[in-house]
Every structure is written in C-alpha cells, then in structure tokens.
C-alpha cells in the first residue's frame, strides 16, 4: 500500500532543514523497501513546528514536528506511517489548537496541497471563483468585491471594490493588473507563504481582477529576496497556461489574460505602488506624486489596478464563496479575515488567519504564547518597519484598521514582531530613521534629509545633550515627515519613532512627563 508523507517546500521550512528531512525519509523508506510518496506541500504556517512531517492515515493527517534529519530513523521505528506514538508527535493536524482556532479562508489550502498540482487545486475548490466570475461579467464582479467589504491587504486598507470600479470605468483598450509582491516589511511573510504554498490562488485572483477591469495583462512584482516564491510562481504560471487557465480564450471563454513575473532588485521603497510601477517600467524606483491615481494612469500611463497578493487571493475567495459569507466576518469596517503574521521573539510564531476584532493581547499572550526567550513581552511592533511599537498597556486594542489608527499605529500588512524586556527602544527608534535613510528614494526632502537628521537628534538625546529640547525637536521633525512626505516611507517612519518615545521615554533617558503632550 502506498503511503503518503507530507513535508513543506516553503522557504522558511527549507531554512530550518525541511529538504534534508524529506531526503532522509526518502532514503529510509527505500532502504526498508516501503512504498512511500513524499508530497512537498506549502507550509501550514505553524513555524515553530517546522520542519513538520505529516502522514496520511485513515483518521486523516497526523503530524510530527519539529523533525531533524536525525529523528527520521526513530520515526520509522515508532511506526509513524501508521500514526505511531513518538516524542515529537503532535496528533491529528486538524486538532492542533493553534490551527483549529483559525478561520482559514485565504490560506485554506496552504500546507495541504501540492502547490504546483492543478488537480490538487481543483480538488480543493480551486478555480471555483474564476468559474463564477466568468458567468458574472465585469460589472457584477466589481459589485461582488465591493459588497464583501474587502480592503487592500498591503497596508493602506483602501476598499478594493472602489479601486476596481475606478479602473473598470477608466477608458482605453490597454489596462494592467499589477500584483504587489514586494513584501519588504520585517515580520511579514504571508505573501511569500501564499506564493510558495498556493500560487494558483494568486493567479485566479489576478485573472478575476483582469475580467473585472477589462485588462489582458498581469504583472507580479516580487522581491528578489524571495527566490523560491519567484520560481514557484513562474512554474505555476506555466502550468496554468498549459491548462488554458491563462493565455488566449481562458477556460473556453472569450477572455484573454496573461501574467508575467518581474523580480525586484532589493529596494524597499519599490513596495510603494507608484515606485513599483516605475521599477516595472525599468526606471529608478522613485515615488510618483498622486494624482493621477494608478487606476487612471498607472503602468506605462494606462489604467492599472495595483493590489497586494493577499487582496487578490481574498477576492478569489469572495467570488467562490460569496460576498455575504465574507462580510459576515470581521469587526467594524474591517470585514473578513486577516492573515496575521506572528514573528520575532515569540514562542509560537507563524501565520494565524482570523476574523478582525481579536485583541492584540490575545494574539501575543494566548496565540503566540509570549516570548521565545521566556522573558516578559515589552513591546510589539505592528505593521512592519513603519508601524508603531505597542506597549502592554495597549494590548486591549482590537485588531482593526480604525482601532489601530486611533492608537497612533497601523496594522499594515499584518505583521506583529515581539520584543522581550532586553530591547532598547531608543535604539529601535534610531533604527527606524536609519532604515528610512537607507531606503529613501530621494525624491522628497522630508524623507531624504529628515531621516538623517532624525538619527542625529536621537543620538543627541541618548547622549544626554539637551534632552528635553531635542525631544521636542524630534517631535517636530516627525510632524514634518508625516505631513510633508510623498509616500508612506517618510510619512509613516514617525510611527515607530514616536511610539518608542511616547511609550518608552525612560529608554531615551527622559521622564514620562517630559514627553507627554
């Protein structure tokens, strides 16, 4: 009887030894003359258990993790192919509480299927959204996405339906669908995980967007730091083309749609949509002034929808299962689910997809289990390098675009990075300015020069030079960056800086009263 064993091919699983584990299982099986098929899936997102090994049993998949190559003989000895008991056994995968607590819509297939098998994709409800979209037509697709309440998952949270409608109504024969896969925020990896673990879903979502706005050409701009994601997307696009899901007259319809993958070259600011468009056009990744909006004049001056990987993926789910199902979940004006990425110094890091509304404290203390180092959680940076540091006092904040904004923070692309009590928050604030200086495209003055001046001012505060006066200067500088920058790089760098200063003044050598406004 053929046995099926599942090991992830996700870059993060490979980084902790998944390839060596898969090879060891293969060798052990052939030595014992056992008929074992090793399926390389995406990751379940339970990263503290990676490399995770799953086995298909009569009672469903049973999981073991984290597994080192040296554990493999022991796995065979304990009869893991029949779900045998082992020190690293974690039981039936579906019963793992961390996974069971989630509502996986966008990541429903990730970790379960072979990412490059269209048969697997179809067997797990793949292409259902595209089939429905083909029967609905442009106007109805846009209405459905608008009704779902879906907002851009890249960080800005702009209503996707409005964006698609703007591009659909724009005139012209040539339009583009651009996927922003330049996931540069530290603490985020959902785009990578989806591209590596369920690439056909992104293809499906982008194709639906193409039908919605009347575009025949799609571009995925993926950062060069993600070689595995780029290779998986290219392979998936080729297979989708062979199966007529891309190309001319897709799926037997009258529509044409093609996708091309463009690799970035290590620039963070190219994650900003207009800088990204400049880069795709082959230029320096410098931010454009808005208006015109990309929906009116985007790539090569043509109407363009630019959305994040997760937005396209969620749109495909909305078309497959319906807008009402999607909008039924969520909190306030944040509808549906968010794939939250728990990273850094946390005990149980990984991808946790859940409806909006869960509190920051639940995510950090209950789901992530506090720090990996075992020390107290001192701060959590939410939303990447441009996101605020939240102290424990704000852990009752519900995960929601507006609630985070009200606390001078942002949810951004959904990353949460935990820090224990050894963190120096003045150093984190300085790093935010340093990162802005390093990655600034140079087009606007507040970002290009303000970031360097910011580093200097923070240095002076830390060295004890006119602390109170320099703290005031830093605040004013942050105001200038916030309101005078062209894009979010300069505009949002004040979030980590000011949150560090306001919530952790003691790290700057300041009394709490000195910074309170």
């Amino acid at each position, binding site marked *: 009887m053929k046995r099926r064993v599942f090991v992830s091919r996700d870059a993060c699983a490979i*980084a902790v030894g998944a390839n060596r584990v898969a090879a060891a299982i293969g060798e052990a099986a052939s030595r014992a003359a056992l008929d074992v098929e090793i399926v390389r899936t995406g990751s379940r997102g339970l990263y503290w258990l990676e490399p995770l090994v799953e086995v298909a049993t009569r009672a469903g998949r049973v999981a073991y993790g984290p597994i080192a190559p040296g554990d493999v003989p022991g796995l065979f000895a304990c009869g893991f192919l029949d779900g045998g008991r082992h020190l690293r056994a974690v039981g039936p995968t579906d019963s793992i509480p961390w996974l069971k607590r989630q509502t996986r819509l966008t990541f429903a297939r990730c970790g379960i299927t072979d990412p490059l098998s269209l048969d697997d994709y179809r067997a797990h409800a793949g292409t259902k959204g595209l089939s429905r979209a083909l029967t609905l037509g442009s106007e109805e697709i846009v209405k459905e996405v608008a009704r779902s309440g879906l907002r851009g998952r890249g960080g800005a949270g702009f209503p996707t339906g409005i964006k698609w409608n703007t591009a659909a109504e724009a005139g012209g024969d040539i339009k583009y669908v651009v996927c922003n896969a330049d996931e540069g925020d530290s603490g985020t990896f959902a785009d990578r995980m989806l591209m590596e673990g369920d690439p056909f879903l992104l293809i499906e979502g982008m194709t639906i967007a193409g039908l919605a706005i009347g575009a025949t050409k799609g571009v995925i701009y993926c950062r060069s*730091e993600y070689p595995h994601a780029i290779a998986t997307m290219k392979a998936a696009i080729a297979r989708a083309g062979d199966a007529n899901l891309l190309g001319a007259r897709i799926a037997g319809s009258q529509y044409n749609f093609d996708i091309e993958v463009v690799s970035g070259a290590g620039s963070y600011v190219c994650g900003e949509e207009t800088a990204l468009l400049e880069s795709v056009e*082959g230029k320096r990744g410098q931010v454009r002034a808005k208006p015109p909006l990309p929906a009116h004049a985007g790539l090569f001056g043509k109407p363009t929808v630019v959305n994040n990987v997760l937005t396209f993926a969620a749109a495909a789910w909305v078309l497959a299962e319906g807008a009402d199902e999607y909008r039924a979940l969520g909190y306030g004006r944040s509808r549906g689910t968010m794939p939250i990425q728990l990273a850094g110094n946390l005990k149980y890091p990984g991808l946790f997809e859940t409806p909006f509304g869960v509190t920051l404290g639940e995510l950090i203390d209950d789901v992530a289990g506090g720090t990996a180092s075992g020390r107290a959680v001192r701060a959590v940076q939410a939303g990447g390098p441009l996101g605020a540091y939240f102290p424990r006092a704000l852990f009752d904040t519900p995960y929601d675009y507006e609630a985070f904004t009200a606390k001078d923070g942002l949810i951004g692309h959904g990353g949460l990075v935990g820090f224990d009590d050894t963190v120096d928050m003045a150093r*984190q604030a300085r790093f935010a300015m340093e990162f802005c200086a390093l990655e600034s495209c140079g087009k606007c003055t507040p970002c290009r020069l303000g970031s360097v001046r910011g580093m200097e001012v923070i240095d002076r505060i830390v060295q004890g030079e006119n602390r109170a006066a320099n703290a005031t200067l830093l605040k004013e500088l942050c105001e200038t960056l916030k309101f005078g920058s062209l894009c979010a790089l300069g505009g949002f760098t004040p979030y980590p800086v000011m949150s560090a200063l306001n919530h952790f003044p003691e790290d700057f050598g300041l009394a709490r009263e000195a910074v309170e406004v």
Partner: protein
Amino acid sequence: MTRRSEWSEDDAKRIIAAHAREGLFVVLTALNDAFGYLPKDAIGLVARALNLSRAEVHGVATFYHDFRENAPGRHVLKLCGAEACQSMGAETLAAQVTRELGIGFGETTPDEAITLERVYCLGLCACAPAALLDETPHARLDSNAISALIAGARE
C-alpha cells in the same frame, strides 16, 4: 556556489542583445546575475545598446541594492538585520560574523570566498534570525550554526 562568469565584453553584449527588448532594468538584472556585478564598462555598453545616456543607466544601476559595483566573492552571505531578526539577537550574530570574517558589510574576504551583505528581511521572520547564503535560506541561526555556515562556504 552560484555560477558566475568572469567579466567579458563579448558575453555582456550577447546578454544585452538577448534582453534589450525587455528594457533597462531587465538588462541590468541579467548582467548582474551573470557576472555578479555591473562593472563600469557595462554601463557604457548598455547605454549604447539601448540608446540611453550613461547618466540614465548609471541612475538605475546605483538605485537598487542588488546591483553591485564590484565583483563579489565566490559566495554571498546576506545576513538579515531587520526588526524581527533584531528581536532574536541578529546584532550579536552580525558582530560575530564580521569578527570571524574580518570584514564589514559590503566587503569581500581577501581569499575572495565570501562577500558579506546586509539585507532587510528575507520573509523568514517566524524562524529568526535568518540569512541567505547564495540562494539557500538558513534560519534559527545561532553562534554555532553561523560559524558552520561560514566554514562550509570557505571550503
């Protein structure tokens, strides 16, 4: 080890011709991938072939962190220095690596074995700290693991 060729004007011209229709950025990426860097001579060749000014080509070539001005070593070690890795001790690790290699970020060891580069996020944040050695990702790095990685690359 990444397969890279020695700089050759003839090879460069072939690469430029093969990608000319895809535009400047793709041409520069292809040259950087093939040789590991963009020598000064490449700027002029690209400018002539694409009918652009040298300034335009230089502007794009110097904007992106991936495009190197100098030839890298046989291996490139990109060590992540972003927040998630910082929270798990990336700075201590960086200090160890620069000490062991005897070079700073952006530099190459005298034996030309390793070029050390800073990178800000590899998307391996759930298993921090992380690094990329050529195209292979490594995570949950500690002092011993990074030493072993360096030793392996030097062989």
